[in-house]
């Protein structure tokens, strides 16, 4: 006996999917790569060699806005500076002091190490916005970002976000200010469909994860808000205590892009954030490439 057709009248049956396949998420499993691959035909191609070939990031200042960075980790190398920034009181926008404690979690050290692995000669500054016991608040995050923007770093790596909508106008203003003063703000997208900021802003480069092991492989997403996907799964990264960890998540995809931005800025001094973002999209995996 023939079983009844579960999709009788309305055209072909839907494609079989695994339960997790249709979950809305801002990451890029291998099976979905073809969906986002760049389709636009550009007047001239840009190769990674043209974008960052021969560059080591020299002369570029990268700020790691995070949990602090262990300064003596062999895979991080010397830091240009290590600071703690907290929210100020009254009219004072922030308070800055030297960071004597280093990394309080391991997360910031991992981000710094990944940037270093891509751009070995860049200058890395740690700006810690999470206090002892991870008491970081949205207010400290804003204070740290304001400090970093005013300090004029070339790249700010922000593997952090806030879910508090009341901070959105201030974050937006800071992200725009960074954009116009040639500071590239690279921000982690949430791994889950959660409303958080600043990664949703057009003036930042928002980053999600793909599953490939190549640290230079990028995908440009035609379906924002996430604009760039970079290596974010099973990344060996330095951790506090002079150790290493295999880590996964958008937090670790973001410093890959920060490192590539440092290479681009070092090779093309004076380049604007919008141009850096376009360059990343132009070197992203293309639809007609064999390995997509």
């Amino acid at each position: 006996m023939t079983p009844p057709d579960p999709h009788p009248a309305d055209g072909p049956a839907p494609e079989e999917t695994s339960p997790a396949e249709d979950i809305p998420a801002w990451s890029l499993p291998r099976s979905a790569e073809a969906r986002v691959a760049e389709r636009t035909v550009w007047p001239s191609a840009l190769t990674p060699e043209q974008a960052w070939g021969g560059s080591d990031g020299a002369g570029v200042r990268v700020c790691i806005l995070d949990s602090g960075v262990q300064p003596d980790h062999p895979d991080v190398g010397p830091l240009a500076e290590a600071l703690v920034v907290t929210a100020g009181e009254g009219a004072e926008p922030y308070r800055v002091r030297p960071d004597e404690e280093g990394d309080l979690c391991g997360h910031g050290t991992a981000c710094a190490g990944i940037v270093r692995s891509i751009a070995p000669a860049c200058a890395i500054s740690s700006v810690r916005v999470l206090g002892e016991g991870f008491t970081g608040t949205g207010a400290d995050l804003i204070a740290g970002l304001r400090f970093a923007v005013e300090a004029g770093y070339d790249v700010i790596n922000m593997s952090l976000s806030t879910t508090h909508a009341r901070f959105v106008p201030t974050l937006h203003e800071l992200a725009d200010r960074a954009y116009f003063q040639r500071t590239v703000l690279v921000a982690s997208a949430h791994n889950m469909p959660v409303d958080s900021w600043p990664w949703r802003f057009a003036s930042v480069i928002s980053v999600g994860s793909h599953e490939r092991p190549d640290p230079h492989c990028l995908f440009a997403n035609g379906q924002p808000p996430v604009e760039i996907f970079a290596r974010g799964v099973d990344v060996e990264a330095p951790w506090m205590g002079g150790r290493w960890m295999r880590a996964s998540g958008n937090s670790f995809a973001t410093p890959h892009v920060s490192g590539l931005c440092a290479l681009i800025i070092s090779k093309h001094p004076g380049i604007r954030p919008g141009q850096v973002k376009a360059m990343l999209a132009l070197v992203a995996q293309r639809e007609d490439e064999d390995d997509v």
Partner: protein
Amino acid sequence: MSEPGAFQSAVAHAVLGAEAGHADLLAATVRLARATFRARAASVFLVDPTDGALVFAAVAGEGERDLLGRRVPRGTGVAGWVAASGQPLVLDHVSQDPRFSREAAESTGYVPDAIMAVPLTRAETVLGTLQVLDRASGPFTLKDMDLLGLFASQAAVALDLTLRARRAEALLAGQPDELVGLVKLAAALDGDPERRVAGLRLVDALGDLLG
């Protein structure tokens, strides 16, 4: 009443015994998460807003019998980071990190090798974290992260309801004069079926009167 909807929540709690039901939902979620990832343990931490400590609110697997209610000081390990940053974190070979191992052993008595932790967020607030230890479901993939996110969504709802029930309970305890009559009424309506029918008629009439 100090909070919109608190009156209804208080009465609902009194009638339904809400917290126990929500705790069951939370427990079912961690059991399902543990089974899905074939993990040694899955647990939900609740952030205590008074001191930022993480409190075990549900545990399946390793530590199931004695960790419930155990408090982990603010700033401990991966769960603390996830609660503070609002970002999921997936780490492998964590037992190689001496600081993490010590903290984990001190807080739970168990040192995992792999950990997946995801924030439980409702509206704008991180209420806690969901943690899955030592999955046996193979190498981590982004699909795992999506699945973890789904479990987190469900656990966040359960945790939110639990917290609402607790607040309602505190409200009842703090304002007995204002609500004691209603609570007694709700309890009476749960009692003798004959009196219940008559009582509900009276409640309807009172509803009409108050408009």
